[in-house]
């Protein structure tokens, strides 16, 4: 059973790390702010979500697991808001120029 849990954690966290890597590459390589933002938010949501998913079976208690999920949800909220604000600022600047 522990082997299955370990395997699940490794696969999920590995996939999460892959999304973070892809997001970082996108952030560096994409040509304009909006597509860079796109790369970044996907990495945040999916990458962190998968890492949290992989950590869930390893948490000590139900409370610890709920805290992990709460952290992911809060990062989602903050990330989505920041992306909206940056995107709006980019559009305003674009129309002004």
């Amino acid at each position: 059973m522990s082997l299955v849990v370990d395997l699940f954690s490794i696969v999920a966290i590995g996939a999460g790390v892959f999304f973070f890597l892809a997001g970082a590459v996108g952030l560096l390589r994409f040509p304009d702010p909006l597509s860079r933002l796109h790369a970044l938010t996907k990495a945040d949501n999916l990458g962190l979500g998968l890492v949290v998913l992989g950590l869930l079976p390893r948490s000590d208690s139900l409370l610890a697991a709920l805290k992990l999920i709460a952290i992911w949800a809060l990062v989602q909220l903050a990330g989505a808001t920041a992306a909206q604000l940056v995107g709006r600022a980019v559009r305003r600047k674009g129309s002004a120029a």
Partner: protein
Amino acid sequence: MSILQALDVGLAFLVFAVAAWTIFAPGAFAATVGYVVYGLLLSLVWIRLFAVDVALTEAAIGSGVTGVLLIGAAARLRAAERAGHEESVSGLSGVFAAVLCALVALALAGVVLLLPDQGPSLAPQAMRKLPETGLGNPVTAVLIAYRAFDTMLEKVVLVLAVVGVWSLAADRYWGGAPGEARAASPEPTLAFLAQILAPLGILVGIHVFWVGADEPGGAFQGGAILAAMWIIVMMARLTEAPQTNAFWLRLALVAGPVVFLAAGLAGAIFAGGFFAYPPGFAKPAILFIEAFMVLSIAVTLPMLVAGPPRREPRQ
């Protein structure tokens, strides 16, 4: 080298790189962003040093509130920066400043490297007396019991900082409200964030204060989280800063230091020493003082961010 050690070395290099980037960043805004990232990385370093209390404070105050203050300053300086009115450092004094900074850094590094392997420590004594305070977190015991006077003075400094900020107001604005007025239609994205985050954050802030007696956390960290919630609600312009002549506001600002000082004086009468707590009653006394400090910090930091009064006081 184990994986953790390799990660530590990587983290240290990252801190250095971000610090260097912050110094050489083009413009005040970019440097501020670098500084915030630097603070967050530094809080990871504190966690690796098992100093979770310091990590929480660094993230909340060093990176969070200071970051907001600096972004505000950068925004105010932007016009001057664009017009090229920046005070540029000339060649010779620039070199002089760089040499001075390098000397300070070298001296600090030397001091750290010359420390004896077994550094002088009061930790054993602090842990031995911990049961007498009724607390489980030695950091809180140091802050509110062993070195209570220092902590009380820190709170006084915060109040003085607010007085300093307010005194920058023009005469006709004295006593008026700082910051932006409440918006008729607030920016929807920020308003959404503030409405979802504020109730959660208030809960987390009170929780961090409450568990601070026995686990990492405490008045400063909890108060900073509460302060952040008020700041975000004001930033979204769902509400506006109160008038600086409001009696409740001034009372809340000084409540922490006043209660702390009163408790210290009461200790001189009832417990046989300035800032001494009566045996068996230390923990309730400490939590009582901390509660008022949370209130004062939660009001002080947003007032620092809001800045000097900018509107004429309503009667």
